[in-house]
């Protein structure tokens, strides 16, 4: 049994500060995950050289891989710290903030852009009316299954992190908001605003900026069928674009 857990953490004191790597050695306990190691580190923030340092900043909320807040690069791959078990990781364990989002401090990043994308593509169902509209139409079992898979997206950003076409040079929104367009276009009430959502993704940074590297679907911790959704939206937008032109 190892005596300690060896960590290498990419630190950054603020959004515009330079980054640096700092090593830590935490006494080993079985069955830890990256979050519990970071909590342990916080009790006594001392690096591997015995120097006092600032506690490492990171985000976490649910601790059961459904909120996406603790997403970071763990040994180079984007995943959630809460479901990354120490006993299954190769040491030294390298922790770094996501690279496709602005760093706030240490491992904490600002993923506001994902919310902006959801707003841009109108990822909601309009239900508000002046009076009770009654029950909506039923969903077929097939559509319900697909919708459930899509609804598991927790906006963690793994798909954006893994995507070569999401970067500072491009405006591509990545797979997550596109899958939500598919979800709300399946919904019986959401369908009524189908074309508005398609219009929203047929723009710069939208569906056509996907390059089919298909990293997103591999990186997704919730197994959301991202590439199938993108291809399905390719079909929806292709048909819609013809209709839009020829009906004009």
């Amino acid at each position, binding site marked *: 049994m190892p005596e300690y857990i060896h960590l290498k953490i990419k630190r950054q004191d603020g959004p515009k500060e330079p980054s640096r790597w700092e090593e830590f050695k935490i006494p080993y306990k079985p069955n830890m995950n990256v979050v519990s190691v970071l909590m342990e580190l916080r009790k006594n923030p001392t690096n591997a050289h015995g120097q006092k340092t600032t506690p490492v900043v990171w985000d976490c909320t649910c601790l059961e891989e459904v909120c996406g807040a603790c997403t970071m690069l763990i040994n180079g791959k984007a995943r959630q710290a809460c479901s990354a078990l120490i006993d299954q990781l190769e040491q030294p364990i390298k922790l770094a903030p996501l690279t496709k989002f602005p760093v706030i401090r240490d491992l904490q990043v600002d993923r506001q852009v994902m919310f902006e994308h959801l707003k841009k593509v109108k990822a909601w169902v309009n239900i508000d009316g002046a009076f009770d509209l009654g029950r909506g139409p039923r969903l077929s079992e097939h559509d319900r299954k697909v919708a459930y898979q899509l609804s598991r997206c927790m906006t963690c950003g793994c798909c954006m992190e893994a995507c070569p076409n999401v970067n500072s040079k491009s405006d591509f929104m990545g797979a997550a908001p596109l899958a939500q367009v598919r979800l709300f276009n399946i919904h019986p009430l959401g369908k009524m605003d189908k074309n508005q959502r398609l219009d929203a993704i047929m723009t710069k940074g939208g569906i056509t900026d996907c390059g089919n*590297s298909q990293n997103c679907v591999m990186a997704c911790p919730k197994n959301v069928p991202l590439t199938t959704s993108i291809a399905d939206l390719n079909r*929806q937008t292709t048909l819609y674009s013809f209709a839009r032109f020829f009906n004009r």
Partner: protein
Amino acid sequence: MDLEKQHYFIRKLHSMSGVLPIGLFLMEHLIVNSFSMRGPEAYNNAVAVLQSIPFLPVVELLLIAIPIIFHGLYGLWIVYLAKNNVLSYTYYRNWLFYLQRVTAIITLIFVAYHSYTLRIANALFGLEISFNTMTAVLSNPWMMVFYIVGLLASVYHFANGLATFLITWGVTVGPFSQRVAVIVSGLLFISLSYIGIQALFAFI
């Protein structure tokens, strides 16, 4: 014209132009070139038939030159926009994506050189396009290597591009059909490469 507003159309045009007409032309070009395997006379006859197409300059300009220039230049911009990460995410699809961009650059350089030294030289300086001309070019071993690299790059770019074209237009939606498309595009890559290499070696 507001380019941002036309973004969807331009991207779709870029995707379409790679298959129609460029991909179709590539296949026609490789098949006609393979007449070199039937000897100088057959090859020169095939070239003569092509050169006798009515309105040839217009056809070449509209169906070959302009689509290739558009696809190539806009494609360079798309290549620039990607930040490749095959070393962190080593999935085969990511490699196909990366190779698509690598072969894009090689193909662009090759096609520019190839068309300048043959078709454009023919128009400007009256260079005769014949079996002997090609033999003279390809008897230089470095030129042969350059042509083989250019051939493989352009055939890969076309075959893999065809598989992603099917995704881009919403034909292959599910993972199974997308996998079948990759296998078919692999077979297309092998057969077109075989035809092309046989045709090249027939010149020397």
